C-alpha cells in the first residue's frame, strides 16, 4: 500500500475515536461557551 494511503488508513480510526469520545466534546463545548461569554463581556 502506498505511504499516503497507509497514513490515511491510520488516521481515519483515530479521527473516529476522537469524534466519538465524550472527553473531547465536553472541553470543546466549554471552550466555545467561554469564547461566547468573552465576546459578550467586551
Amino acid at each position, binding site marked *: 500500500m502506498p505511504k499516503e494511503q497507509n497514513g490515511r488508513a491510520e488516521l481515519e*480510526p*483515530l479521527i473516529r*475515536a*476522537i469524534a466519538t*469520545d*465524550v*472527553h*473531547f466534546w*465536553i*472541553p*470543546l463545548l*466549554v*471552550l466555545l*461557551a*467561554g*469564547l461566547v*461569554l*468573552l465576546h459578550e*463581556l*467586551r
Partner: protein
Amino acid sequence: MDAITVAAVGSPMQAGRLRRLQALGVFCGVAAGAWLGGAEAPIKMVNSDVSPITISLIMVFGVFLARWSVPALLRGTSHVRHDVRQAPHLVIWAVLAGCMWAVANTLTIYAIRNVGLSIAFPLWNTNSLLGIFWGFLLFNELHYAGWKRWVGVLGGATGMFSGAALLALASSNQAAPGKAMLGVVAALGAGILWGTMYIPYRKAYLTGMNPLSFVTFFTAGELVTMTALAVGYRGAGPLWRELMSARALLFWLMLGGFVWVIGDLFQQYAAKYVGISRGIPLSNTNQLWGLLWGILVFHELEGGSHRIYAEVIGGSILTALGAVAIALSSATEREHSSWQDAAEREGQRYGIEGGYVRAGMEGREYEAGPSRRTWVDWVLIVGASGVFVVLAGVARVPRMEIHLGWAAAVTAAMLALLVSCGTVLWRTTRFK
C-alpha cells in the same frame, strides 16, 4: 490483594511503588502551590499602565519560552517525539487545554475589573471542586475510596474554598463597581473552564504521556489563542506600540511566566500521580504563597485593621488544614485499580500499547528511547536563555519598597522545594 494491586492493563503494581508515587504526587502538589504563587511576585513589580490583556500575553510568551526550553533541558525533545508516536491523539487534548487556559485567564481580567479580587478569586477557585467532579465521573477517581477519603477530599476542598474566600477578602482593597453580575459570570466561567481543562490533563496522564511532552503542545494552543485574543481586542498596531513602550517591563512579566511554568510542571506531575481530585486542590495553595509575598515582601496590608489580620490568619489556617486533609486522603490500592480500569479503557479506544500505558502509570521508562540531547535542544535552551538575558539588559527595576531579606527567605524556601521535589521526582520517575 494486600501486597499488590492487580493492574488491569497488565501485570500487578507493587503496593510500595504505589505509596511512593502517591507521596510524590502530594509533594508535587505542595511544590506547585509555592511556585504558582511565587509567579505573582515579578508581576507585582509592574505598574498598572499596561493593559491586562497585554500583561497576560507577555506572560504567555515567557511561558512559551520556558515550556520549550525546560523540557529540552531536563530530558531532551526526542522524548516528546517518542511520546507523540505512542499517543498522537493527545496532542489535540493538549492544544485544547492550552486554548481553555488562555480564555479562562482573560475572563479573570474581566472578573477582577467588575467585581474585584475578593469576590472573583473564590468564584474561579471552584475549579478544584469541578476537577473532583470530572475526576469521579470520567476517570474513576474516588471510586472505592471509602467515606473517610471522600470526607478528606471534599472537606479539604471546601475548607480551602472557604479559606480562599477569607484570604481574597482580606487581600482586596477594591470596592466592587457596577456590572457585578457580569463579573460574577466571568469568574464562574473562568472556574468552569479551568476545572474542565483538567479533563485533558487527566486523560493524557492516565494514558501514559509525560507531563513534559504534554506542556509542550499545551503552550502552543495557549500562545495562539492568547495572541488572537490580544490582537482581536487591542488591534495589531496599538498592541505592538504598547509592547514597545513596555519593553522595560517585559523581563519581569516573562519571568513571572517562567516561574509559573515551574509551578505548572509540578501541578502536572501532581495530577498524574494523585489524580485531579487531589492534585488540583493541593496546588491551589498558591494563594497562600501569593499572600506571603504580598505581606512580607511588598508590605501589603500594612496598617490594616484587626479584622483584616483575623481574616488572613483564619483564611490561611483553613487553606492549610484543607490541604493537609487532602494530602492525607491519597488513593487506596482498590481505588488505584479502578484508575487502571479507566487507563485500560483509554488504551483500547486509541490502540495504545498496554506496556506504554502501564509504564506511564508507574512512572517508569517505556522502551529506553534516545537519552542524549540533540542540537535542537541546545538551540532551544540557548535561544530562550538569550531572550531572557537581552530583556534583562533593558529591564528597569521599578521604584518600590521591597523587603529584600524576606524576598531572599521566601525565594530560598521555593528553591528548597524545587530542589527537594525535583530530586525525589528524578529518583522515583526520571521525570516520567
